[in-house]
């Protein structure tokens, strides 16, 4: 018998069955190639030699001796820090379908243990709420079946672009045009925008792939798709290239990367698409950016002007300024001035009950070029789990409220609203985006969806799959700064997928607009087309209740 004292059981001791993901391994199929253990980003599995006692059940005592068999197999580690994250890369590389992670059908016990060393749980990804969200439930119900029959999505000409920038009232435009006064810059862009993901959060290969894809869409397909950098600047060669016009540069509370940007201004061949001032984001409202030390490589350190291997938490607010109203006003003005008032400058805020107040400030600020509201389902490279899961406001009603407020003032064309946060969370990217557009958005930002569609990001809200963007171990090489990992990601292939994704979005947009009889302009605010089988939501969003 084994003595009871030698059984290791500390408060944090867990069995494989206590983990959110349990490795299912079939020894009869395993070829012992070792690929799964080599590829596992978190070292959750090990290839080990095991011994099995082989008792001989014979009556004769002299012959009754025990022999042992040794064998080799895969075992799951039971350290909290080595927990299986369910990414499933082992299953992807296994030549023989011998291994896969399966979600624990019971409540895992890691959730009670993942505060080791007093650290609250941090992760990447977005709010863990599986299943259809509100946007997925919106239907386009106003199908043209009478006077104006549905259009031919395949052959008809559609105008799908939107405007980014402050638009004057017609009266003011005419007045300024006659007097030769300043007209605020306006960009005509595709309404699905690659949202802000920083150079630092994303690997260089991912970033390059996105940019290549965006450039191809613009220059070959004439689709004015733009992408936003997150906080953390932009590689100098891009700043000085003609591709800068496809990029929205973000400035956030850490001002990372802005030394490089400001220094590059005299050498820029073109202006950036816009400047985004981040005041908040949906994944971690009220919290600044967070680049964990694992990802602060030599390159990132140089771009951001910081030492290597240190955590880079941005402050929650723009510290140099006194109040948000003032900071919005001053930053918008000073950044406009940096490019001689030729570049639209707009803030990005977290979805919030106070979004309307921010918006009203912007309406009165003649330099504000728009407002981006990022709802609670927005993703991030790194945040505290509690922020991600429980902080923030859903995007649909927040956006709708702001839009209706603008309508009441007759200003809905003047300040474009952009929406983000969970667009395409369940794969219905065009439907989600168009629903938001018909609720009043001028366009939508996509982050996680693009990583999933263009680079095969494995992260998901079902059982918190993967979501380890924060520690630089992204099994696909999307959010890693370790060349050994990000070499897995071929930028050309990412670019191809970016193009595929946007071409498909364009087709689906037409497939949505054609039956509604819309083709001449993006149906912003066409709320009569929407229906939902949820009375309360219908009332809140002022759309039709259908059942």
């Amino acid at each position: 018998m084994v003595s009871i004292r030698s059984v290791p059981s500390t408060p944090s001791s867990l069995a494989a069955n206590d983990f959110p993901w349990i490795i299912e391994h079939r020894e009869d199929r395993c070829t012992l190639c070792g690929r799964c253990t080599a590829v596992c980003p978190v070292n959750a599995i090990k290839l080990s030699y095991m011994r099995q006692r082989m008792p001989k059940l014979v009556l004769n005592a002299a012959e009754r001796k025990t022999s042992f068999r040794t064998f080799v197999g895969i075992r799951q580690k039971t350290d909290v820090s080595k927990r299986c994250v369910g990414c499933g890369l082992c299953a992807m590389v296994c030549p023989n379908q011998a291994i896969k992670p399966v979600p624990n059908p019971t409540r895992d016990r890691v959730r009670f243990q993942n505060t080791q060393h007093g650290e609250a749980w941090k992760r990447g990804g977005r709010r863990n709420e599986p299943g259809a969200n509100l946007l997925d439930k919106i239907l386009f119900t106003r199908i043209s079946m009478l006077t104006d029959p549905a259009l031919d999505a395949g052959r008809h000409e559609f105008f799908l672009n939107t405007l980014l920038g402050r638009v004057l009232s017609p009266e003011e435009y005419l007045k300024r045009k006659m007097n030769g006064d300043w007209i605020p810059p306006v960009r005509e862009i595709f309404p699905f925008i690659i949202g802000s993901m920083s150079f630092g959060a994303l690997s260089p290969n991912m970033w390059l792939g996105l940019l290549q894809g965006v450039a191809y869409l613009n220059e070959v397909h004439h689709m004015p798709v733009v992408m936003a950098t997150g906080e953390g600047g932009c590689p100098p060669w891009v700043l000085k290239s003609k591709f800068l016009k496809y990029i929205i540069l973000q400035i956030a509370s850490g001002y990372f990367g802005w030394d490089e940007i400001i220094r590059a201004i005299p050498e820029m061949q073109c202006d950036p698409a816009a400047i985004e001032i981040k005041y908040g984001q949906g994944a971690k409202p009220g919290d600044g950016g967070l680049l964990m030390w694992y990802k602060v490589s030599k390159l990132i350190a140089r771009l951001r002007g910081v030492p290597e291997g240190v955590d880079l938490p941005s402050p929650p607010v723009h510290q140099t300024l006194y109040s948000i109203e003032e900071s919005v006003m001053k930053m918008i003005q000073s950044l406009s001035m940096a490019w001689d008032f030729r570049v639209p400058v707009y803030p990005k805020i977290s979805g919030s009950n106070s979004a309307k107040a921010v918006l009203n400030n912007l309406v009165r600020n003649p330099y504000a070029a728009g407002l981006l509201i990022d709802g609670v389902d927005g993703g991030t490279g790194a945040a505290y789990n509690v922020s991600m899961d429980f902080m923030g406001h859903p995007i649909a009603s927040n956006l709708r409220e702001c839009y209706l407020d603008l309508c009441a003032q007759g200003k809905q064309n003047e300040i474009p609203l952009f929406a983000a946060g969970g667009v395409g969370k369940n794969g219905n990217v065009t439907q989600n985006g168009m629903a938001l557009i018909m609720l009043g958005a001028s366009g939508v930002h996509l982050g996680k969806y693009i990583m999933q569609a263009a680079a095969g990001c494995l992260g998901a809200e079902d059982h918190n799959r993967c979501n380890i963007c924060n520690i630089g171990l992204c099994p696909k090489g999307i959010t890693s700064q370790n060349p050994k990992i990000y070499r897995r990601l071929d930028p050309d292939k990412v670019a191809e997928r970016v193009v595929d994704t946007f071409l498909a979005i364009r087709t689906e947009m037409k497939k949505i607009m054609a039956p509604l009889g819309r083709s001449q302009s993006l149906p912003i605010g066409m709320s009569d087309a929407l229906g939902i089988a949820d009375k309360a939501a219908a009332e809140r969003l002022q759309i039709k209740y259908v059942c």
Partner: protein
Amino acid sequence: MCRLALKTSNEAFSPYGVFEAMEAMQEGYDGSGLGLIMRGLEFTDYSYNSNDPILSGIAHTEEALHRLNAFMQERGFELKYDHEFHVDLSHIEAKDRYKYLVRVYKRPRSWKGLSQEEVENEMMMTRLALRKDGEEHGGDLTSFAFWPDVIMIKEVGWPLEVGKALGLDEDRIKARVCMAQGRQNTNWGINLYACHPFFIQGIATMTNGENTAFIPIRDWLTGKGFPGYIGYQSDSEVFTHILHYVIKQLKLPLQAYKHVITPLKTEELERHPQGDFLLGLRNVCRRLIIDGPNAVMGTLPDETCLLVMDAKKLRPATIGGKPGTWAMASEMCGVDAMIPDRDKSLDFQPMRPHTVIVPPDRQEYKIWSQFDQFPLPQAA
């Protein structure tokens, strides 16, 4: 799809001929509404001074008529002529038509010294106040227009029947411009206010087809806070209000209307001599872009008539005629019915960039293309 007919002539003519043209296009409407606007008026039993405002509408009850009388009296309007239609309600479905109103008023003394713009505003506010009064009393009073030299009639029924119901075949009223629309009820309820043409401050338009961009356009116009931008029982009312907005509020020339409702594409504007101005105009008026298919016909206070198309699916609307008399109709057979003895080689069907304009002298119609230089020197 509704049917449209417009005739303009140097000689005043009976509106019944336009109804006959509507009859020629009968397969295109369902009798759910008929509207008629007349301009350049002559009455057989009254010598009309074309500066006096005319109230067009319906008093559905005697009580409504009394209220109307009291209302007008209180505001200092003096009734100069009350046109008595020879009504025969057996031709139409509606029974609650106590009195069809075409009444000429003398302007109140208090309006003296008001600018033209202020007078126009007063007339619109009077019409809106009457409309509101009717709506507050269960819809017993409808007011379609209150404007000099304009009569507007709206009724539910087939054109010839409506014409007979009101005795319009007796030629007691003649007009130099007459515009009629037979309605195919789309997704909006049957309502007298939903009948085309729509009217605001001297500007009237009518449309066939559906405007799928109606809600965003309505929301934008409503947000302007202009008191006349109300109603919207029909998705086509926005066409009238956009034309009003372009001409009266922005004070742009008529040609700008087309650039607002169906702007050129970006790549076309890049080659346009005034592309920079027009691109900016497209941006600022982006919410007014229509989504047809539509043919829009309109008339302005100076008797100018216009015809434009949407940019999407072209309708067969046609203009034809001869110097002095022109007809527009949503189908060519309508033009044939109105002016059979014309040179058909002068017929024209406008395409995507065109605005057809018949100026008040009616000698020839003008085709103006969006690709042409924009006639606004200071904007160039």
